[in-house]
């Protein structure tokens, strides 16, 4: 079975109401899709978020170019059985560009599982049984709105919430975290995510100030590349840190372990470069006895489904897969959260396919 064709599509998914990030407002997800077609007609799909310049420097046009110029030649015309070798070559062919690699890796996994006729979570050894907790996020906004939203999530069944912090003055953060904790009570797990907003000194002081609200975790307090800064903060505070923007490559992960910098990995396919690399990060987390969370960017249902399948075949502390929240019309139908817990589509591979008519063709390469 050979991979005969690779097609890349883009799609703009408007968000209602959109969300604020510390760099600005995001009103639409600009997604990149990959479709692989084997010589027997089987297809495999992948999707990643494209407009992530504020997060990783990646863009839809850049992802399309990386796929067209570097990654597509490694898989088109190749037997599907050699996909491990192709994925191993990704990093030699092209540094960085984890999102483009993730889109193709997801499509390869979808194709392999579809060809075997089994759902991807089964292909990876997972199961549907049991309840895997999901989490929700409170984006920037006034304290009373955050409290109301938090109560709404708890009413829906969520037991794990994360508050975005990093506002100036810091009193705004304190007010929001306090309001949320008071609104949901002590039984709900609460974390904060600073998205690199603080210096090391600020992080230590501010985390100390927030610890009275019983935080289970502080995500990415300092700059992504400041791994020693993460370690310095970790030594100074009681609450475990979670690495998000600091954790892309396998080398990042081992460096964080060597430094004793974090208690949690935030594993995302789009950062790791796909399911294979994400599973390697998970192996390290397990070996080092760190907790890990399986998350994602805000992105469409197909990308979300890929992460959800992996979650059923691993043991994350919880998932953070609310990425389809607020998408007005997703070309891929379905959802993965139900009453605060994870569900995944049944059916071979990812169990979902996008409506091709809603996608904009970017290029194709045929063997």
């Amino acid at each position, binding site marked *: 079975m050979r991979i005969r064709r690779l097609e890349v599509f883009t799609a703009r998914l408007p968000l209602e109401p959109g969300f604020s990030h510390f760099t600005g407002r995001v009103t639409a997800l600009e997604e990149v899709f990959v479709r692989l077609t084997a010589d027997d007609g089987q297809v495999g799909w992948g999707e990643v978020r494209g407009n992530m310049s504020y997060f990783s420097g990646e863009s839809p046009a850049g992802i399309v170019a990386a796929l067209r110029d570097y990654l597509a030649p490694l898989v088109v015309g190749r037997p*599907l*059985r*050699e*996909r*491990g*070798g192709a*994925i*191993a070559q990704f990093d030699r062919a092209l540094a960085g560009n984890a999102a483009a690699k993730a889109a193709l890796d997801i499509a390869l996994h979808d194709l*392999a599982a579809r060809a*075997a*006729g*089994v759902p991807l979570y*089964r*292909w*990876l*050894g*997972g*199961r549907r*049984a049991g309840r895997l907790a999901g989490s929700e996020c409170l984006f920037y906004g006034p304290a009373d709105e955050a409290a109301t939203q938090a109560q709404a999530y708890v009413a829906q069944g969520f037991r794990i919430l994360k508050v975005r912090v990093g506002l100036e003055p810091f009193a705004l953060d304190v007010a929001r975290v306090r309001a949320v904790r008071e609104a949901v009570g002590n039984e709900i797990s609460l974390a904060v995510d600073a998205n690199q907003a603080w210096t090391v000194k600020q992080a230590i002081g501010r985390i100390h100030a927030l610890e009275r609200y019983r935080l289970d975790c502080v995500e990415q307090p300092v700059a992504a590349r400041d791994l020693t800064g993460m370690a310095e903060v970790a030594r100074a505070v009681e609450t475990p840190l979670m690495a998000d923007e600091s954790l892309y490559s*396998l*080398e990042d*992960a*081992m460096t964080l*372990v*060597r430094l004793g910098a974090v208690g949690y990995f935030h594993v995302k396919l789009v950062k790791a470069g796909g399911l*294979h690399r994400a*599973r*390697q*990060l998970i*192996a*390290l987390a*397990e*070996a*080092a006895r760190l907790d890990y969370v399986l998350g994602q960017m805000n992105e469409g249902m197909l990308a979300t489904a890929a992460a959800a399948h992996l979650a059923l*075949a*691993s*043991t994350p502390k919880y998932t953070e897969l609310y990425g389809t929240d607020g998408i007005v019309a997703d070309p891929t139908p379905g959802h993965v959260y139900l009453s605060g817990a994870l569900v995944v589509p049944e059916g071979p591979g990812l169990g979902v396919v996008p409506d091709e008519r809603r996608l904009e063709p970017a290029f194709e390469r045929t063997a």
Partner: protein
Amino acid sequence: MKITAVEVYRKDLPLETPFQHFASGSVRALEEVYVRLLTDEGPSGHGEARGNSHYLTGDTPDRVVAEILQHLGPRLVGRDPRDWHALLADLDGTVVGAHGARSALDMALHDLVGRLHGVPVFELLGGAVREALPSNQSIFYGPPDAAARQAAAYVADGFRYLKVRAGLRPFQRDVDRIRAVREAIGPDVSLAIDLNMAWTAREAVAHLRQLEPFDLAYVEQPVHYRDLAGLRHVTQHTDIPIMADESVQSLDDVLVLARDRVVDLLHLKLIKLGGIAGLWRAAAVAETGGLELMIGQTNEGGLATAAAAHCALAVKARYLELYGSEGLVEDPASGFALRHGVATITEGPGLGVTLDVARLKPVGTVTGEATG
């Protein structure tokens, strides 16, 4: 879909020529334990572990059998084999140090799942990262001229990777053998040495300086397996890559060896890491730490060797050591072959191995679920 029974079998596989291991004395036969997982929908899965591995893992045949029948087997009966991630997690920690038993069951579970999905096991592990499986061969202890003849014969047969067992006293005997082998095989064949812990760290640094002219690809386990400080010292004081073998007994060991940069390479074996899933995880951790790998095995039958070969196809490794089922008088498993230095597997579903169960001795069956 449920596992209905775990059958356990024994068989001794006599060796054409007994081998000497520094710690075990003469080994005349591989005392193998086989398992078969039966399901309510027909397909079954097979696994194998070397029983007389007392000098490697502490296992004995009776111990492996007892661990499967009493503790590990009951955890699998009644369960859906397709949930293998959770099943294998349940086996972890059930019995401390149950290397062979866990490896045999993990192997059988992968074989079964591959058959259920209709794919070879290497496909479950992510697909092939290489096209061929070139194995090394080992030159055991003996005089220099005999070592040179043996090495030349392996090269003539097609082997491109050789490993000489070293650690004789006085050290000049090693030097003479290594020089004789290097001269016999020329500069283009990869040559390594395996000390099986024979040296102290101080000896290793001095001896390896003397061995630099022989262009060694790596030096395996120069010092005692527990002496990680010594191992790290050797790694830091020689240009020759250092490989850990006996120091790798678990995923925890792999983490420490990679995290603390103790060595340059790891020798991963199914029986040390509790099976295929454990080996995959160990390889992942090694890669995060920038360590290279050898995927190998202890001497064992063709079923276990095929399982190692599936791992070798799917996991990025610099070196392979897949000659473990060579020299057996008989083997109830067929499907794996090593010819002219290259290993091959049958690409059928699962491990692609046919096991003649009629030639095995049944020693017990688990049909009841774990009670607590």
